[in-house]
């Protein structure tokens, strides 16, 4: 995948709406109808950030990575992923980020590559493409015609079309899992509910101890059983816990104490120096 210039990032963030990326998302209308039921920031309004892997908390949101690749890169990636499109066989594969010291690895799915700034009038490679008279609207810049020197990407070979690659983790697919969860208010336990959801999602879900004071799942969850990620997040909030999907795919519900212990441990051991932001102060220690 390409390491690109600031110029590319600016163009993409300016001209491509993040909503366009999710226009094929299966539950857009449902999310719109849900309104403010879930407390999370709206993922679909999050800007496209090239070269980033965004890993959110919760079941209803999914990890997202945006990158660029040329057509040759896309073809190579499809081959490596073993895509068998005629038979609708898609496979996830490890997405690996490395800075020489640390490697971040997560199994991700590649969504359909989205063509970027391609010039349909000038499929042939030519340095004069940008001077062809325009008889209809074209996207603002094409990889072919944009002066590469100004981008600082002189090593990139001309003549290849660019694609926006969007990678997602399993949680994106959770929205497409049909539910056979049985919830009998007053009888079904929280443990049973989480276990059933995990079975439907084909993933084990561990929980911290659920206080008996939370009783049993109520009928308020019934309308949300249609989409497992929604009922999973709502149920987690209802028992004072949050869903965390780790980079290795394990899924757990954490209470605040477990989560804060993890934060403190990692702050004490992470080797990377802080370069921005910091720590909120809630006490004087």
């Amino acid at each position, binding site marked *: 995948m390409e390491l690109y210039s600031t110029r590319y990032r600016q163009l993409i963030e300016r001209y491509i709406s993040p909503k366009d990326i999710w226009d094929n998302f299966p539950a857009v209308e449902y999310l719109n*109808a849900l309104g403010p039921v879930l407390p999370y920031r709206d993922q679909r309004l999050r800007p496209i950030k*090239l070269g980033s892997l965004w890993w959110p908390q919760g079941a209803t949101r999914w990890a997202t990575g945006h990158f660029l690749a040329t057509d040759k890169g896309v073809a190579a990636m499809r081959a490596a992923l073993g895509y068998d499109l005629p038979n609708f066989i898609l496979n996830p594969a490890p997405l690996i980020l490395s800075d020489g010291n640390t490697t971040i690895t997560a199994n991700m799915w590649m969504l359909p590559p989205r063509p970027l700034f391609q010039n349909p009038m000038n499929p042939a490679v030519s340095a004069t493409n940008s001077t062809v008279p325009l008889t209809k609207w074209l996207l603002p810049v094409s990889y072919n015609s944009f002066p590469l020197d100004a981008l600082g990407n002189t090593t990139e070979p001309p003549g290849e079309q660019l694609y926006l690659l969007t990678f997602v983790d399993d949680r994106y697919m959770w929205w497409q899992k049909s539910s056979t969860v049985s919830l009998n208010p007053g009888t079904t336990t929280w443990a049973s509910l989480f276990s059933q959801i995990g079975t439907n999602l084909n993933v084990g879900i561990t929980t911290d101890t659920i206080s008996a004071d939370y*009783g049993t799942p109520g009928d308020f969850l019934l309308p949300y059983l249609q989409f497992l990620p929604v009922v999973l997040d709502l149920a987690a*909030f209802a028992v004072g816990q949050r869903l965390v999907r780790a980079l290795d795919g394990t899924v757990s519900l954490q209470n605040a104490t477990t989560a804060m212990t993890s934060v403190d441990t990692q702050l004490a051991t992470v080797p990377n120096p802080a370069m921005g932001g*910091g720590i909120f102060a809630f006490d004087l220690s």
Partner: protein
Amino acid sequence: MMDTPPVIPASLDVTFPSSGNASTDPPFFRVKVTLASLGLTQFDSTLSVNAFATGILPRNETALWSSGSVTNAAALTALATQAAKDWYLYQLGKLDIVFAGLAPWTPEGTSDYVEWTQTKDIVSTRVQRGTALPYVAQSPARQSIFTGGDLNSFRRPLVHYTCPVTGQSLHAGFLRDNQILAVPYPVPRTEAIVSIGFRLDTVGPAGSLLRCAIYDSDPVSYDPKNLLFDGGDQVADVTDGGVWHDVVISPSLIMNSGNLYWLCIQGNDTAYAGGGGSGVQFGYVDQVMLYNFRGLGGDGDETAKFWIATPFTYGPYPATFPMGGSTEEGGNAPAVAVIHG
């Protein structure tokens, strides 16, 4: 260290929707939980806690009222205390930090997200806690569920909604046989409808059935047009004390913003016999706004018309609404209502 104003409320009102008598019981049961009572010493009283602020933590468990008091108050109080404690502890999420390089950060429950970035300009890792005070949206706010007055004007989950031209007081009335009754349901914003229901007040003779449906509308005439959902036969000969009968719509039906839909009901009880006084008694809603609905009420008799009755022999709803012989109706409207998710 980052400076933070004292944004943590000194107490939380944990609210539970009520199930009781709308005319005598409050709509919510409230349990106030103070931060001090929880013994959480992690919050500095000066830096973090606003002594004058109270947050609201809505819950979905139902407060059961009887004879002016809540019968499950002890359980709800224990639940409120635990929920408040968990909520306060999650407010201790303390990171909005950027590490140089790719940090091996393991996602955890207090952080809203972890973001690893690797571009030509920067290689970094950002860890950010969730929204500052999400207490008003911790769980879906649920309105109270009273035995009366349970049609609401604001569309929220788990509440019945019907034509906005009606009032909210329910009355029992006889359901006309061999007719489809249709009330208009305008949709200002896209909604996922998860059920359609009716309220049965008095059962009919053995074998009595009711049947609900949803139609879309003709874009020109606004008349009901294409069948979207047929709820099938629902028994109406079993005593149930006048509660709502909801037919689940699964997968949910998406009603798109800016469109008009029609909620329909029909019954097979012939005891009505053109106005007779026996048989199924069904919920009707006050008509409190004396206005015609767009497309209806044009017959010059100056009586507000906003729903439709059309002759139809009881059975499955036809794919196209049978407008032939239909009449425009006013007065109390049939209480057929939907719930959206």
